[in-house]
């Protein structure tokens, strides 16, 4: 079943076009990986899905992106509501310089999700458990989040993202700043999360895409070259460029 349906998405930075006619169907409760060489537009596309491109003044998005029949690329859309249901994890762990508890509680607080202190405690605990961080931090929830290790910080960011029970989580190269052990933990986590959440992950690591995703899209020079089941993309791609990229001939 399709969760997000993008049709003919074009993105411009000023006069420079960054995405060309991208159409893609992202299935519900699956992991979709977007791969491609640097500057190919995969992050730009990802940021269309929670309208983070709004922050960039010169950026202009054309085309239709529908999530459950709700048009995302519309002026009328309330981005605050959108971002409540589409969470995001960034390349570099960016916890707030506040306590671990406050980091996780921030989303539920501003969206008015918890009615009481007990409810909030519960949300914080569940989120941290889902992010596989609870056991490491349960005794020091009032310590500053930026004091954790890189991998822990990234899991804290994931806990923060899932605290508002989003339907979709966007991950922009979430492991590129982490060591292999922390990466493995995050990948396991992604595998767990996909039971409840639709995940779109941008990654530079093809092996990571192969490990965690069910569908893979290959971007090159702003175009979606090929999109399909991960197995097929990696074993038997239709397109020569995809073949060249995944076998390491360029990129």
């Amino acid at each position, binding site marked *: 079943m399709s969760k997000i349906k993008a049709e003919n998405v074009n993105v411009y930075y000023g006069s420079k076009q960054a995405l060309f006619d991208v159409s893609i169907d992202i299935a519900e409760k699956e992991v979709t990986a977007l791969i491609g060489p640097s500057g190919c537009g995969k992050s730009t596309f990802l940021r269309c899905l929670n309208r983070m491109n709004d922050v960039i003044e010169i950026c202009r998005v054309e085309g239709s992106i529908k999530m459950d029949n709700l048009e995302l690329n519309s002026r009328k859309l309330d981005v*605050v509501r959108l971002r409540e249901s589409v969470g995001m994890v960034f390349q570099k762990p960016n916890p707030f310089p506040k306590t671990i508890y406050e980091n996780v509680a921030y989303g539920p607080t501003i969206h008015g999700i918890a009615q009481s202190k007990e409810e909030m405690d519960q949300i914080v605990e569940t989120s941290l458990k889902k992010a596989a961080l609870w056991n490491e931090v349960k005794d020091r929830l009032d310590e500053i989040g930026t004091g954790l290790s890189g991998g822990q910080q990234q899991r804290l960011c994931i806990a923060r993202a899932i605290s508002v029970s989003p339907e979709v989580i966007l991950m922009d190269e979430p492991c590129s700043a982490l060591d292999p052990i922390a990466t493995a933990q995050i990948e396991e986590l992604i595998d767990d999360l996909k039971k409840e959440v639709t995940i779109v992950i941008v990654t530079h690591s093809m092996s990571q895409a192969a490990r965690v995703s069910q569908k893979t899209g290959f971007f090159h020079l702003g175009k979606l070259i090929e999109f399909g089941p991960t197995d097929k993309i990696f074993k038997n791609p239709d397109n020569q460029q995809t073949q060249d990229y995944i076998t390491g001939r360029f990129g």
Partner: protein
Amino acid sequence: MNNFKQNLLKKRYNAERRFQWYGKIAIGLALSFLAVFMFQIFSKGYSAFQKTWIVTEVHYDKELLLIDAESPSKDDLENADYYDVAYKAMTSLDPGLPEEEDRQLIQMVSYKYETEVKDLLLKNPDYLGKIVPIKLTASDDVDQVHKGNYPRDIPEKNRRVNDYQLQIYDMLNERGDILSEFNISFFTSPDSREAELAGIASSFMGTVFSILVCLAFSFPVAVLAAIYLEEFAPKNKFTDFIEVNINNLAAVPSIVFGLLGLGVLLAVFNLPRSTPLVGGITLSLMTLPTIIIAARASLKAVPPSIREAALAMGASNMQTTMHHTVPLSMPGTLSGTIIGLAQALGETAPLILIGMVAFVNTIPGTPVDPAASLPVQIYIWSESAERGFVEKVSACIMVLLAFLILMNLAAQIVRHKFEKKWS
């Protein structure tokens, strides 16, 4: 070839060594200037923290005080006539002096000696009818003689202290009746035409009120302007124009702001002249660009990843700014504010223009009472002819510098203690 390379290497090392020496010489030069400056001020000013008293005896004679009542009330003491008692206390120092020469003795203490005689009795009503020792403030000339600042070898007619007075001084000094104590009244008294009575209380309070008014006006305006410009305003030609103008404003000479205060605050809005209220507002015009620039710089220094994190959580622009960006930028903004206020603290020219240069011999209790300020006080005293004011100028500079150092220290502490470290 090898030799050539070695020479080149040697040249590079020598160049670096030379460069380091230039730097050391520059720093040494700056430090020695500072040392000379500090030495000048301290050597001239430290004596102002000592006050000279002349000790004599006073007889609280009921008859001379014109008190009739058997057991006089507080009011009776208040309304008594102290002229004769005080006069006798001074002239008793040299009973042989002919009456027409008595001024020579009276001039050795401050003109307020009669009040001092009165105050002692009011504080100790049981002294009535008794002979008690009393400390009287020495005149600034005697004070300067005692501190060794007054040359005795110039001809008598050029001296403000004549030979007779010197003789009395020497006699008293030998008896131990000249006292030198810490000069509390320098800090508790307002300005005065008499150097021995002049203090910095009015100008100090004037400075404090001015700075508070300045803070109250400039901080909210500057912070709001900085937040809007940095976080909300679209980047276009108009906001660029505003930015350029703010930077220009920071470079405008302070006297121009003084004229603005004179022309607008006094002439148009009719605010009370010579008051810290007007002074503070005028100074806040000057401080405004400094705080805006500091606040914008520290807002800019907040990593964009924090804004992205908040926005991606569904925070609105306003929430992102108020929950994350502004709190994180506060240490920088506050230290910039303190630096701006420290600049305002030392300003003289704009305050002179709005009339804070007036002679004020009362201590202001509110920002709308007339007052001077510390730098203006320095200016006023440096214009005075009396020798006694020379040390006061230096002492006032010391107080101002101490104030400045404290504020800069506060700025440093705020910056280092509260600044968040990014991972």
